[in-house]
């Protein structure tokens, strides 16, 4: 099997899995869900590292890769931290335990 063919299988299964998972997310949490998926899509950092860190990378790759690592690290860090910050605000009862 060619690698892209295998990739298409993976893609198809991941899309269905994504649909099933997201459908179960409570509407309460749609905002943190979106910031979490933002953070997950910062996985682009993997691609950015690969093109920047390559042996003898041309300067174009270095420059573009550098910007890409910066942009996706910003997303990654702010995405996870803000998701956590939002979720911490959801409390079931009034904060009585003191």
């Amino acid at each position, binding site marked *: 099997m060619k690698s892209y063919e295998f990739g298409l299988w993976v893609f198809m299964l991941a899309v269905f899995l994504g649909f099933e998972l997201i459908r179960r997310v409570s509407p309460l949490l749609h905002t943190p869900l979106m910031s979490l998926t933002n953070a997950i899509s910062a996985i*682009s950092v993997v691609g950015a590292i690969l093109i920047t860190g390559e042996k003898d990378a041309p300067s174009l790759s270095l420059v573009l890769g550098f910007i890409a690592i910066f942009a996706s690290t910003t997303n990654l860090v702010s995405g*996870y931290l803000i998701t956590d910050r939002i979720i911490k605000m959801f409390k079931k009862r009034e904060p009585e335990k003191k």
Partner: protein
Amino acid sequence: MDSVLPALYILAAAGFILALKWMSSPATARRGVMAGEAGMLLAVIGTLLRYEVVNYQWIFIAFFLGLAVGVPIAYLTPMTAVPQRTAISHAFGALAAALIGTAEYYRHMPHGFTMGALVLETLLGFLTFTASLMAFAKLQELLPTRPMTYRGQNLVNVSLFGLAVVVGVALVISPEQTWMFPIFMTLALLFGFLLIIPIGGADMPTVIALLNSYAGLSASAMGFVLDNNLLIIAGALDGSSGLILSIIMSRAMNRSFTNILFGAFGQLHTSAAQATARPVHSATPEEAAEILDSARTVIVVPGYGMAVAQAQHKLRELLDALTRRGVDVKFAIHPVAGRMPGHMNVLLAEADVPYDKLFAMDEINSEFPMADVALIIGANDVVNPAAQTDKNSPIAGMPILEAYKARTVMVIKRSLSPGFAGIDNDLYYMDKTLMLFGDAKSVLTSIVKELGAVPRAVENGNGDAPHFHDARMPDATGKLQDSNLSTFSTRTAEKKV
């Protein structure tokens, strides 16, 4: 080593899947974030250790810069500005994907299927980049939030997109024609920019969700270019999440994607908003407090106007005061309340409203007929009965919160001006509806005060209260301060009981 690294990627993908799974309920959501973080850490380590990666200095400098920018964003963004942050992070994510695609094109110049994926990656990446920047500018109100239209707009947009696709296909057929790539890039960037111009503030939740989906799909396409399954999986999860959210949003407004992207809502119907002078019943906060006090069940319908007036903390005080008096209070949240999916829940959670008081539209609609009072604060179109009764209304068929079925309806609103859809609301003219005119925060303050959350007024109300502008209640500055102080003291007193 070579057998360990794929394992790291597989674990990372599992982490992302668990992260989404645990987002299903607030009880497990924090665990979900941790699973996601762990997944990302494994993915980054697994990549840094790969034998192809030999130069680290630029990588670490970029890491550090991203950290320096990302951490302050995460901690300093106010909850009302979360939609803007989301839009800008879509822009960053899409830019990263597009630039990686560009670098890969000039470095390796792939052919066939891989080139197709690369074209898709850069097309989605560049258009999402400018579109998200525009969405950010509109949400941040750097640009006017109302739709901007001009003659032939749709024709321009469609032909621009068509042209971008044609050049893209030409690039797939003959990747050697490098002169085409900058043209392709420019077309994609321009299209993203023009796509958002006609879209108004009310449609932002749908558009943000759609851009989320594009950014994810772009990352997934990158996975095909770089032959990396982890990217394919993470991007596909993100893409399907954004797609589902935008479907939920557009259903909640009873509109199709094409209508949102090409319809320029609001602009078309402003002429329908004729201000016919019809009589309304208005009430004072004192009267409202009396009715609320004697009610058994109250359903609050908050809209974005409530958040604009920064009234969520006052609303929470009202919840406290009413709960203390044995009134059952629930909050009805329309899917498009706020500026992004789920935004209203976050704003109320921030004000310490327990989340088991927050109900989605399908859960709460059957309860309105049993409710003594529906209290509407800063919401308009989402409670407009015309959506169900008037087939010619621009919002006909849009699912609404059936507040009009409650025994008494109270509306806190600055004036009778129409909402986003630019149409009048019949709810305001019903016999059982009481209008409380004024700024949401000051009206709520007065109601809470009347409810006796304040047993004894504080004497030194010297008018240094927070900003307050409402000509209708000249003496409210002092009042505001009083009730701030005294509700605080009653609450602390109560905790000791």
